């Protein structure tokens, strides 16, 4: 078995474009998921009982069923009641739905890690509520939450590969195209694997730098 990488490597701008789309899906889903997670985590902490139950049910459901089948459901079942989603939207909604649950769990744990005594000490020192949030709660919460959040982002970036199943032409989708055009499947998918490693590595480094200087979180990259 001989490998021919040239025809695949000639197409690298095409693949890089796919990688860019993968990153876009991951970033969008992460951003929306953060908002959902923040709302859900706040509800879990301050909301009334029935809302808390609803959020718990959502988190349990979303974290215990495969994202793939959830997107299948969105993509194939919703048209029956007249909601037709484009592949990109379906994948984005599915990824957001999934990410929201995980990010809710992470943020809930972050909220719980705030020590009441520190807040009380700040109150005694005459901090206003805004100052307490700004100088006591946020630095602490960010430091605790940052490593799991960046980890979740990496997992989500890998998860975007299932968008290809619905015909979104991101990195894996374009790899499918290339492998059926050239019949060099092993080569195409090895190149895709290397690209995925490169993307996630860059993301990890970037996040580690942000984490170190913004959130004072220490992240070991290697």
């Amino acid at each position, binding site marked *: 078995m001989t490998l021919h990488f040239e025809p695949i490597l000639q197409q690298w701008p095409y693949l890089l474009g796919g990688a860019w789309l993968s990153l876009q899906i991951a970033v969008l889903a992460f951003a929306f998921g953060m908002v959902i997670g923040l709302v859900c985590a706040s509800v879990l902490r301050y909301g009334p009982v029935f809302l808390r139950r609803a959020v718990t049910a959502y988190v349990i459901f979303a974290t215990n069923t495969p994202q793939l*089948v959830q997107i299948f459901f969105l993509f194939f*079942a919703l048209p029956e009641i007249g909601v037709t989603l484009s592949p990109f939207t379906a994948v984005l909604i599915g990824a957001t739905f999934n990410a929201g649950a995980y990010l809710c769990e992470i943020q809930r744990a972050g909220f719980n890690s705030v020590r009441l005594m520190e807040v009380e000490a700040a109150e005694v020192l005459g901090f206003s509520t805004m100052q307490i949030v700004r100088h006591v709660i946020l630095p602490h919460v960010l430091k605790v939450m940052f490593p799991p959040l960046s980890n979740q982002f990496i997992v989500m970036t890998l998860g975007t590969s299932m968008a290809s*199943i619905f015909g979104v032409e991101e990195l894996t989708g374009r790899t499918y195209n290339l492998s059926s055009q050239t019949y060099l*499947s092993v080569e195409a998918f090895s190149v895709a694997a290397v690209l995925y*490693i490169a993307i996630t590595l860059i993301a990890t480094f970037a996040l580690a730098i942000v984490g170190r200087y913004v959130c004072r979180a220490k992240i070991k990259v290697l």
Partner: protein
Amino acid sequence: MFASSQAEIAQLFSFYNLLLLLEGFAATLVLSALGCFAGFLAGFVVAIVRVTHSRAMAPLRALAFAYCFLFRRIPFLVTLMLVFFASQSSKANLSTFAVASLSVCLIASAYLGEIIRSGLESVHGNQWEAAQTMNFSTFETLRFVIVPQAWRVVVPPTFGFFVMFIKDTALASQIGVMELTSAGKVLTNKGFSSWLVYGTVLALYFVMSYPLSRLGKRLEKKLAATRNR
């Protein structure tokens, strides 16, 4: 196509369709169990190689590190396709189920290797030295000193991983393994409503992974109490 939704439900849960779903359920279960067990064993070996310190083991250690590092950064779908096409073009003539199990084991041992390594490293270095002073061999140190202390750290994330893993096997439907998701696809192709079929499939996945995640949560609570001295 169907007279009423009731008729459709009755049709969907007819004997052969149920059999199809059950077979899919069993295949998913076997695939994930295989991945978890084989992955756990292989991951254990990888982790032990990674915590060794001797110079003779350096190349192996680098290999184990690279393995854990790289395979956790490739999406499962891409690994699956890579193994699938590699087995085809090398004329190994593996069944799709074998391909799926192989890639499942590859991924699982990388992830579990990382989890177990972090557990082993959570045991203080003094314990190794103390065991060495008492003339324990490496195996004895692991067996009697390190592992009993490390497993408390290892177990909770392992369960989290198992749950993640059951869900990941859904991707095996892409290469044509007849597991739960493929069974769902077959049923929708037969003309059943996607609501019903994918709802059932989601429920079945839930039935599979929820007990596991509950067990993981419970163990986490139980072990955390003894861990925080």
